[in-house]
């Protein structure tokens, strides 16, 4: 195969290319860019700009720059680009040309064929326009597939099963929710709903407004009225939003943001995750209402769904995941990079369409939920054995998450941090991995201390747990192994371990030589031994090892 088939997510704000490399779906990047802005422009000097440079000139030349052309695909309009006019398909073709160039540079090979994704609600006319755009870009478009379908493919769904999948796609500028039914590779879209003008950009705006208003209260001037200050404030707000996805607080510092006469004014504000969610609550709620609508349109209940997938960068916000989980009663999947998931799925489809061997999208995830034991409310009753999950299972690792806790009695001197692993809502029913105490707490009323507990799960599977009391700075931490059962030292190494291993090895070799009837006692013994090891029952394991040696000796032939 001299040219490669690629998968392209042609998005409203950004586009992404992916391909199968050694069978693995992989995002293609060039010059450090993985997400290519879906923007086309003509510079005042007549240079054609696509992607990031086009985005850069938008403010200066709005009449020579075209953004979000996807919203107009299929429409009979002509869009002005400098002195010329273009159809939406032609503009999309220019974006696809840029995406193809990035793919070609990344692969080091020519790219001739592609699978392109479109929203599930696209009409035939809109799909035709997309197909046309691909052809104008010099691509042979093998398939046009729906974005929710691509997401499902990325997660390996529906290949040999029958599943009803809900895809919740919250991006930078648009929200789409769809229910698709997949059976043995055949996909049917049952219902879709969405809001073309709702996304992460709106969340940024709310935060900027909040910060601007706070600043004005403090200093008397509004930074939003100064171009320079607004630009810096916007960038800071975006960073804070991202930070709040894994920390309960974000500190936003912009020294010398404005001057009042001859006095410099500094911005130094803190935003809590709770405050941020308050600011965007109504927007998030509207996505839930649309999710309810899509269930209604598909004549399904939440419990009829087999899977829920989270797609789009804004689904990284923990509150989004929580709301979806609460509303649907399903733990949604979000471990595949939500910005790249659709492109990866398109690459999978590209592989399937050309008969190439397709590997799964491999993501390192933590297999069990990790959290701490806490006091809380469950079914209206207060109880102190609640599992407060900090890193839910199937989160892509390495990952770092923090949550906020407090004390339950006045002047409480210490808090016990007990780290648990498991899925039960009752902490003590899960596995206790470790514990420590944060002591010497400053005397404060119950519920006032702010104790931030951070779980840092690194690529080696070690979990670093730290607890910090914010007002005093008191801090303690421990490191534990994140997964696996705990075995006493002697069972892992040492002479008795060597004897055990030798016996098991010999037994396994012997099994291959024995007949059906003779195998059973040996197999049974091996199974019992495995069980005893898992349970950490040293004595039982030793006894079984001796039995094993007897049996092996008898059968030594």
């Amino acid at each position, binding site marked *: 195969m001299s040219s490669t088939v690629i998968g392209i997510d042609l998005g409203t704000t950004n586009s992404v290319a992916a391909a199968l490399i050694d069978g693995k779906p992989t995002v293609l990047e060039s010059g450090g860019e993985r997400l290519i802005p879906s923007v086309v422009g003509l*510079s005042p000097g007549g240079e054609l700009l696509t992607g990031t440079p086009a985005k850069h000139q938008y*403010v*200066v030349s709005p*009449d020579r720059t075209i953004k979000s052309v996807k919203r107009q695909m299929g429409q009979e309009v002509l869009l002005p680009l400098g002195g010329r006019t273009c159809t939406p398909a032609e503009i999309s073709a220019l974006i696809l040309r840029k995406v193809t160039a990035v793919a070609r540079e990344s692969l080091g090979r020519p790219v001739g064929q592609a699978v392109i994704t479109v929203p599930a609600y696209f009409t035939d006319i809109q799909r035709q326009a997309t197909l046309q755009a691909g052809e104008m870009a010099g691509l042979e478009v093998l398939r046009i597939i729906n974005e929710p379908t691509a997401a499902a493919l990325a997660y390996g769904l529906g290949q040999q099963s029958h599943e009803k999948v809900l895809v919740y796609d919250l991006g930078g500028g648009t929200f789409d929710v769809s229910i698709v039914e997949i059976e043995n590779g055949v996909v049917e879209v049952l219902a879709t709903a969405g809001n073309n003008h709702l996304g992460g950009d709106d969340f940024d705006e709310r935060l900027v407004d909040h910060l601007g208003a706070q600043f004005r209260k403090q200093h008397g001037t509004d930074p939003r009225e100064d*171009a*320079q200050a607004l630009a810096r404030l916007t960038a800071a707000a975006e960073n804070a939003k991202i930070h709040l996805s894994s920390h309960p607080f974000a500190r936003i510092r912009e020294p010398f*943001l404005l001057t009042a006469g001859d006095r*410099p004014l500094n911005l130094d504000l803190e935003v809590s995750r709770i405050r941020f969610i308050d600011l965007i609550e109504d927007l998030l709620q509207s996505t839930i209402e649309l999710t309810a609508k899509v269930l209604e349109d598909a004549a399904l209940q939440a419990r009829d769904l087999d899977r829920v997938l989270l797609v789009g960068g804004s689904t990284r916000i923990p509150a989004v995941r929580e709301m979806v989980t609460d509303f649907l009663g399903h733990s949604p999947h979000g471990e595949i990079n939500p910005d790249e998931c659709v492109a990866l799925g398109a690459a999978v489809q590209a592989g399937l369409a050309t008969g190439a061997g397709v590997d799964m999208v491999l993501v390192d995830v933590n297999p069990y939920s990790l959290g701490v034991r806490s006091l809380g409310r469950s079914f209206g009753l207060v109880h102190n054995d609640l599992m407060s999950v900090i890193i839910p299972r199937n989160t892509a690792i390495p990952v770092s998450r923090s949550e906020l806790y407090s004390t339950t009695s006045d002047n409480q001197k210490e808090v016990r941090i007990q780290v648990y692993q498991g899925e039960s809502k009752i902490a003590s029913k899960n596995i206790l991995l470790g514990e420590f105490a944060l002591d010497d707490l400053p005397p404060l009323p119950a519920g006032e201390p702010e104790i931030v507990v951070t779980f840092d799960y690194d690529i080696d599977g070690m979990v670093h747990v730290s607890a910090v009391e914010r007002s005093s700075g008191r801090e303690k931490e421990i490191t534990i192994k994140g997964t696996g059962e705990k075995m006493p030292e002697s069972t892992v190494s040492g002479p008795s371990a*060597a004897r055990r291993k*030798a016996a098991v090895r010999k037994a396994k070799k012997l099994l291959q030589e024995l007949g059906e009837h003779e195998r059973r006692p040996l197999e049974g013994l091996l199974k019992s031994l495995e069980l005893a090891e898992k349970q950490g029952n040293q004595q039982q394991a030793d006894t079984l090892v001796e039995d094993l040696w007897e049996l092996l000796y008898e059968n030594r032939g």
Partner: protein
Amino acid sequence: MRFDLSFLNRPRGKESHDPLAEGLARVEEALKELTGTVSQVTKGQFQLTALVESQAETLEETAGNINEGLARAGEQMDTQVSREQEEKALAVLLREFLPVLDGLDRILEFVNQNQEITRISFGPSLVEGLKSLADRAAQALAALGVKRLPATGRPFDPHRHHAVKAVPVTDPELDGRVLQEVMAGYEMRGRVVRYASVVVAVRQEDQER
């Protein structure tokens, strides 16, 4: 050696003290013990052999892993990708420190716009000290191969600048030029690490369209 053991079949008295019979009984006992010990030794031998086999396999596997690891390490040392990785790491490091450099820019800006008052309040050394610090920063960047992207006064270049605001002007000389740098841009060995955020002048008529 052949023993005539037929005498064993002779009826014996209850309390006959027969040294031969006793001796034979003891030999029988000893033989039983010996058989037992030999079988123990054989069992132990069996286990020992199995143990040695198992350890040998473990050693073989470990040796294989080590060889694989060495081969891979050798490959990694040979590739030229390490240069690219080094640059990537440097870019990440730089990005983390940019807010600090930005802060320095802001202070300098303020001080430059309020030179009189600053000098009155703090004497000339504050301004000089800050300028000296800024030079030192530029020096450090230069050592890393990092250059600041020229912006203010230059023609707007979308490959290096990100326009955050367009300001209408009437002077055609200023058209398309960067009026103000909101945030500095930097490049490292020809590749842009961060685009400069700028305010650009646009001729009046264009804005009205």
